């Protein structure tokens, strides 16, 4: 008989457990330029993402407040980590790549920049959990678009 850790290792990789438990970027930024909330109506996950712009159309700082599962918190935390310093247009492209990876488990378009997000590829095996991983990104894009609110569907 396999152990539970072996069975779910693809999904709950150490980095996810770690960031899910001790997120580095949790918390409302002291000052920010835009923010947006995201809801997953099916399961009750909620996240709010805060962004402070940097120079040259980049993201200067990012933070979040969330109630949700380990996957969604780790995903929010890793997202905040990778988008800081990145061009806004690149961030949008990154979400597309990420979403593709979360849905299929495959990532032909993945470059080094995606390395930190790769551990989340395991969600593709759990269709109902894909939204947990993508919700923070939906919120981020809503913030960048000035929409204030989004829901994952």
């Amino acid at each position, binding site marked *: 008989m396999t152990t539970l850790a072996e069975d779910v290792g693809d999904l709950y990789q150490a980095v996810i457990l770690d960031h899910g438990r001790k997120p580095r970027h949790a918390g409302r930024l002291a000052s920010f330029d835009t923010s947006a909330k995201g*809801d997953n*109506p*099916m*399961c009750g996950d909620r996240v709010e993402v805060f962004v402070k712009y940097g120079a040259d159309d980049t993201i200067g700082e990012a933070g979040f407040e969330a109630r949700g599962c380990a996957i969604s918190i780790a995903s929010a935390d890793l997202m905040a980590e990778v988008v800081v310093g990145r061009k806004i247009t690149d961030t949008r492209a990154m979400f597309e790549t990420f979403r593709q990876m979360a849905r299929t488990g495959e990532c032909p378009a993945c470059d080094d920049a995606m390395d930190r997000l790769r551990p989340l590829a395991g969600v593709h095996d*759990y*269709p*109902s*959990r894909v939204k947990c991983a993508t919700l923070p990104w939906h919120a981020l894009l809503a913030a960048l678009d000035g929409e204030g609110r989004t*829901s994952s*569907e």
Partner: protein
Amino acid sequence: MNDAFPAPGFDIARIRADFPILSQTVRGKPLVFLDSAASAQKPRVVIDAMVNCMETQYANVHRGLHWMSERTTDAYESTRDVVAALLNANDRTEIVFTRNSTEAINLVAHSYGRGIMKPGEVVLISEMEHHANIVPWQMLRDSHGIEMRVAAVTETGELDMEDVAAKLSDNKVGLVAITHMSNVFGTYVPVERLIRLAHEHGAKVLLDGSQAVVHRRVDVQALGCDFYVFTGHKLYGPTGIGVLWARHELLEAMPPFMGGGDMIDSVTFERSTWAHVPHKFEAGTPAIIEAIGLKAAIGYVQEIGYEALSAHEAALTDHALSQLATVEGLRVIGQAQDRGGVVSFTLKGAHAHDVATLLDRQGIAIRAGHHCAEPLMRRLGLDSTARASFGVYTSHEEIDALTTGLNRVREFFV
């Protein structure tokens, strides 16, 4: 006898073998089922899909984080893709599941009718509508101050396009709601022309495809209509499932019809917000097993192919019309140019109910009555007709059996 040959490659024996019920006997006679326009029989693949769901992969949808629920959700939602492909919808989110055509039309009457249409606007229907496409508009008229107009039908059982044009001419019609194929005459309505005309006058168009989609390929984008409805049980699928297709922007603008689980985004006691289209219109646990059955039914029809199916049914209809013409005193009601496999008739000296009972005694199932189209009967000066209707499994021999049966009825009765 078989002067009208079936379409090449259409193996009627093999198709009949797909429908377990067709080997039943009724009152000691082999079943001749000529009442498919009321509801069609179910092929083995539909039964199997439903059984398979219940035996191996069943749970509630959209809500579960576990394997059974995820798999059932996939199966349920993939029916939406299949229906979208069937109708050539632009987007899968344009497909809303309902119980049947009737609920689909009521949904539009409630939500679009009360939510979007303004008192004083007009709904235009026709004289040959099924009650399902009359009563919801009457209820809307009586509760919401909408006017209802009725376009005439000609002596041949076709939509009177001049009357349609006249009734559209003041540009007050907001919605034209008309059958795509008459369940009494078998007439196909010239919907392309109708839609063009309606749009020129600023009216949206709802097509009641309950009969049409069973017999012909439907392409909602090519047609250009705004709403399309059909019902699963006539398309060889289970009862309890029907479809509303509508343009995405219409569904977006429409308020929900029923409230409950699955159709919400978030709920507080003060205020709730709605889920995205189409979920906004699907409150509560949907007809999951039935959607899965419908998917199998559509797959079955597509495997045969609408070309083969239409050709088979056209041959059957020709055969039926020529055979029925040999029965003394029989009058076919409705002589449309463009028609499908639904034939209404009267028999001189015998009431339609007696005809139906006497045919039933011979194992032949037809329908007799007003066919849920009372106003049309009144227009025709009839109180009822007998109706034989055909499906993919109907054989030329069954039509011959009907003809023989009718001759025996006439001898017995007249």
